[in-house]
């Protein structure tokens, strides 16, 4: 049995293939940016129209969980970045450990988010007849909160799945350590982190001082 090749059709060299993987991923990420951009825009328009209701509603989100999850995702981005650099240096064990920790931190984020969601539901922060706050636009804020964090969590879940599969396949040597796979996976993971970095100030940090 021969070791699986890192170079695939139609690329003439690994460096060209790596460029192709990264460029393809960046094109996809640009479309992701516009996808989340639509939600950010809706938030900006409604916050501009109803600033007081948005401030009142944002105070109801849990800053502790939000900050903790930001730190968790940042750390997962650190281990993801190290995984790519370790693979470039052919440090197989370090690559595998970093991928495992990255996926683990992703799971930790989802657990914290789950605890937060449970608390949100108990506190009647789901838009509808039982909603906690009186101002109608406060429900718009929480509709955006659930959609944005929910779609983000779906993206993270996909990321955890991809990182796990790539990690296991690298461990089984189906994916060679010279493969260009890691770079593409990492770009996606970091973008999911960037999206959360923007969600923190707009969902959790508003109205804390007043």
């Amino acid at each position, binding site marked *: 049995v021969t070791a699986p090749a890192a170079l695939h059709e139609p690329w003439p060299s690994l460096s060209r293939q790596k*460029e192709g993987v*990264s*460029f393809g991923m*960046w*094109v996809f*990420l*640009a*479309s*992701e*940016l*516009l996808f989340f*951009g*639509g939600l950010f*825009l809706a938030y*900006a*328009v409604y916050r*501009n*129209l109803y600033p007081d209701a948005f401030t009142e509603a944002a105070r109801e989100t849990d*800053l502790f969980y939000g*900050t903790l999850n*930001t*730190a968790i995702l*940042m*750390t997962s*981005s*650190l281990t*993801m*970045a*190290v995984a790519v*650099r*370790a693979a470039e*240096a052919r*440090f197989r064990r*370090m690559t595998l450990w970093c991928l495992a920790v990255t996926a683990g931190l992703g799971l930790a984020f989802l657990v914290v988010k789950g605890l937060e969601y449970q608390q949100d539901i108990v506190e009647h922060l789901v838009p509808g007849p039982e909603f906690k706050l009186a101002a109608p636009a406060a429900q718009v804020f929480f509709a955006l909160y659930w959609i944005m964090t929910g779609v983000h969590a779906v993206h993270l879940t996909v990321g955890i799945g991809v990182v796990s599969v790539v990690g296991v396949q690298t461990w089984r040597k189906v994916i060679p350590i010279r493969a260009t796979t890691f*770079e593409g996976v*990492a*770009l996606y993971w*970091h*973008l999911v*982190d*960037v999206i959360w*970095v*923007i969600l*923190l*100030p707009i969902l959790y*940090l*508003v109205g*804390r*001082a*007043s």
Partner: protein
Amino acid sequence: MSARGQEARRIWLMPALIWLALVVLLAITVGSAFVPLGAGNTIINMAIAAAKAALIGLFFMNLVRSSTLLRLGAVAGLFWLAFLFVLTSSDYLTRLN
């Protein structure tokens, strides 16, 4: 220290420094959110979010050492996002009531 040990150190050094900068920025943004600055709170928070996104994009996503093609791919998303915001704002921010 062995050559491999030095190499391992080199692999961790830059990402660890960026991570440290991200943690410091997180502490500043959460801390400043409790200081009443009016519109200044939003400005500081969004500026720090942009700085964090830039650190992640430039160093974790390697844009500092990427080819022009990749950088253009990355900027294209922001470019069209800017159109989305500018054109929509030209409506909502200019309505008289």
